[in-house]
């Protein structure tokens, strides 16, 4: 017993001493652009986080393998698992931010985004929150360092409502719409927009929160069975999505009337339910296949450099991760065009690049991205870039597109964004950016 105690004491002292050596001053090699990755490969949300992270890492490797980097500057990247927990995300951010003089962070978690929104501006690190994050951060006049590219939650909710409105031939008066949402900032994001639209269109909105992680939803679906809403919107993440679909099957709610946001309508959510989820539809902001997917297969997976399994390439969440990486890379490229081709960019320069993105059809075709994303262009006041998506529907084996690209209605969204952005600025005692600042 005494020897054990001695060993224990010695190991504790050693651990304490070694922790003093913990330091992250190792800067990336001078000639490499550092891209940190904050995925979650473990925990309750891993099934959905892993394909996204694989797509992200694969695209970065593709740029190195196919193009030799961004105008000759090679990309280096490092992953730090956040397990979808805010404090782990913050710790990962602190650890990785020291590795370069400014880099783009994409936390893939609304909770971590909120925390980093406070820290990133001070550290001069731009945040890309493509398809998630704060919906009001599309207002670049207040949120200088946030970039919710390719659609915020308000855009997404708006697109779903447009689709449903069209289905009902333009009249939603008196209809009942239920929102089954993940009880967290992520799930609550669409509520202001849906309430705004309810006022405009006269439908009845029923809010049904599901406590995280959303494993047991019997009570929610019993309520749906009682209320018999005309449509159910699913705003879940991770296991909540497949649990919701399974409960829908168990209570007999037709899956054809269920519509999910782009984070609730991907392969991991339905592959477990299989045939029973047939008819379930959801948003998707990316396209299929195309040259870039071919390139990834050729330059990355065929050379055994792929981050994940090869059959994952081209799935919904994988494409989303890939496009997110592409946006970051294009931001750096745009920055290099202005501040010096072939040089390593710092945070402020990358931010400028992201604010002046101009990915039109021609550009996208050159990069091979034309079938996987729509043209996007950002500006000082518009950090969203583009706000369109399609509906795809599960047929039991795969997803099929059931609509054209629908663009979100900015007439409803813009006033909401301004209202909430102004509120944020007032709380923080920030002033809106001046036009002069926009030109810098």
């Amino acid at each position, binding site marked *: 017993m005494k020897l054990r105690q001695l060993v224990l004491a010695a190991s504790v002292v050693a651990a304490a001493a070694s922790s003093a050596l*913990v330091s992250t001053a190792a800067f990336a090699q001078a000639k490499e652009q550092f891209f940190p990755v904050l995925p979650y490969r473990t925990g309750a949300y*891993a099934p959905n986080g892993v394909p996204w992270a694989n797509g992200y890492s694969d695209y970065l490797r593709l740029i190195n393998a196919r193009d030799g980097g961004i105008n000759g500057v090679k990309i280096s990247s490092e992953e730090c698992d956040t397990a979808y927990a805010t404090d782990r995300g913050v710790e990962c951010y602190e650890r990785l931010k020291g590795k370069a003089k400014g880099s783009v962070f994409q936390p893939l978690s609304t909770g971590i985004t909120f925390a980093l929104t406070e820290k990133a501006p001070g550290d001069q690190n731009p945040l890309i929150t493509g398809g998630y994050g704060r919906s009001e951060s599309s207002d670049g006049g207040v949120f200088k360092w946030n970039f919710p590219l390719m659609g915020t939650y308000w855009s997404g909710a708006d697109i779903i409502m447009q689709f449903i409105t069209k289905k009902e031939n333009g009249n939603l008066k008196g209809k009942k719409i239920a929102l089954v949402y993940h009880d967290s900032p992520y799930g609550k994001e669409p509520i202001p927009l849906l309430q705004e639209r309810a006022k405009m269109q006269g439908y009845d909105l029923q809010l049904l929160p599901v406590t995280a992680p959303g494993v047991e939803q019997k009570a929610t679906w019993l309520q749906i069975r009682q209320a018999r809403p005309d449509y159910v919107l699913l705003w879940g993440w991770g296991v909540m999505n497949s649990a919701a679909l399974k409960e829908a099957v168990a209570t007999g709610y037709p899956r054809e009337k269920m519509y999910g946001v782009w984070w609730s309508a991907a392969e991991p959510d339905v592959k477990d339910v299989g045939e029973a989820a047939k008819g379930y539809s959801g948003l998707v902001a990316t396209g299929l296949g195309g040259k870039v997917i071919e390139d990834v297969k050729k330059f990355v997976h065929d050379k055994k450099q792929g981050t994940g399994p090869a059959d994952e390439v081209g799935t919904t969440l994988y494409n989303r991760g890939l496009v997110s990486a592409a946006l970051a890379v294009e931001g750096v490229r745009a920055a290099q065009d202005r501040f010096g081709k072939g040089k390593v960019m710092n945070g402020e320069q990358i931010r400028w690049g992201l604010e002046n993105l101009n990915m039109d059809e021609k550009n996208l075709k050159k990069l091979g991205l034309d079938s996987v994303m729509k043209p996007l262009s950002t500006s000082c006041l518009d950090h969203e870039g583009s706000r369109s998506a399609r509906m795809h529907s599960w047929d039991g084996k795969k997803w099929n597109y059931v609509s054209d690209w629908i663009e979100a209605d900015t007439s409803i969204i813009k006033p909401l964004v301004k209202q909430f952005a102004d509120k944020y600025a007032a709380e923080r005692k920030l002033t809106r950016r001046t036009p002069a600042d926009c030109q810098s």
Partner: protein
Amino acid sequence: MFYRENGQFKTSYKADQQIFPIAQDRWGVLILIAFAFLAVPFLADEYMMRAILIPFLILALAALGVNILVGYCGQISLGSGAFMAVGAYAAFNCWVRLEGIPLIAALLVGGFFATLVGIFFGIPSLRVKGLYLSVATLAAQFFCDWAFLRINWFTNNSASGTASVSNLTAFGFDIVTPLQKYIFCLSVLVVFGVLAKNLVRGAIGREWMAIRDMDVAAAVIGIRPMYAKLSAFAVSSFIVGVAGALWAFIHLGSWEPAAFSVDRSFQLLFMVILGGMGSIMGSFFGAAFIVVLPIAINIFLPLLGSLVGIEVSTAALTHAEQIIFGALIVWFLIVEPHGLAKLWSVGKQKMRVWPFPH
């Protein structure tokens, strides 16, 4: 031989009753505090401060509060996360709704409301004992989780349900850079540490320990169980509430209720048990262990792996973290069930009688 109190004679009651009667202890603590205030700011880089030292300080404060309830008074509490949340949200509401209120006042108000909630959920402890009491504190945990998500008033009607603060100042100093945050948290911790140490060696502390050891016998000799247990809940919740407000304001800046989930409660309980129940020093040891260990594993395992030529994937790293964490906790409890504080006191005892074995 190093720790002898030979020759230290006390000539007044005041000297005898002081908080650190042995001169070595006194000097040791003073040097430690001086080191923390004066030397660490120069030795630690920004990452160390932001990711390790500041969380350590705040969680040590919370562990202190939990130790008072679990270690000194023997009431198992699995709801400390909820009390932290109450402290954080009460301080937030105070800060946002009362213009110009000083930061310290907001933190103390947060602690006060946490006290009220703690006393309320501590009432079942008068009837329910042992493991069954854990359900009362878990009820507090889940209720608070729900309340802060559902009741918009608590988050100042923000659309997404997150609360955030910025531009903190105290006594005219800004609290924005990591160094300022570190000094602020350190000061709060030192103040509360001294207060807690004095409480537990006073009458009320002895009452708590009597209740912990044998509550029926304590009641027989005249200690009122209600007063003792509820005061333990009150003091513990106050400290935990202030720690929660610090965690939200200083460390996170912008938070959601999930930051104070049941995992946080378990983490605090781990700190108390690993550090040593019923020991103030133990709370600090436990907090240091729990804060540093996952990060150390995360940083050193890839290095070890590269030495042997194995690349450790991020998922494997997190899993390894969990495995090592769990295994270490179990090993610890087998080897030293009384925690790190017991190791420390054994060490001191050895120093006292060195070179003799006992």
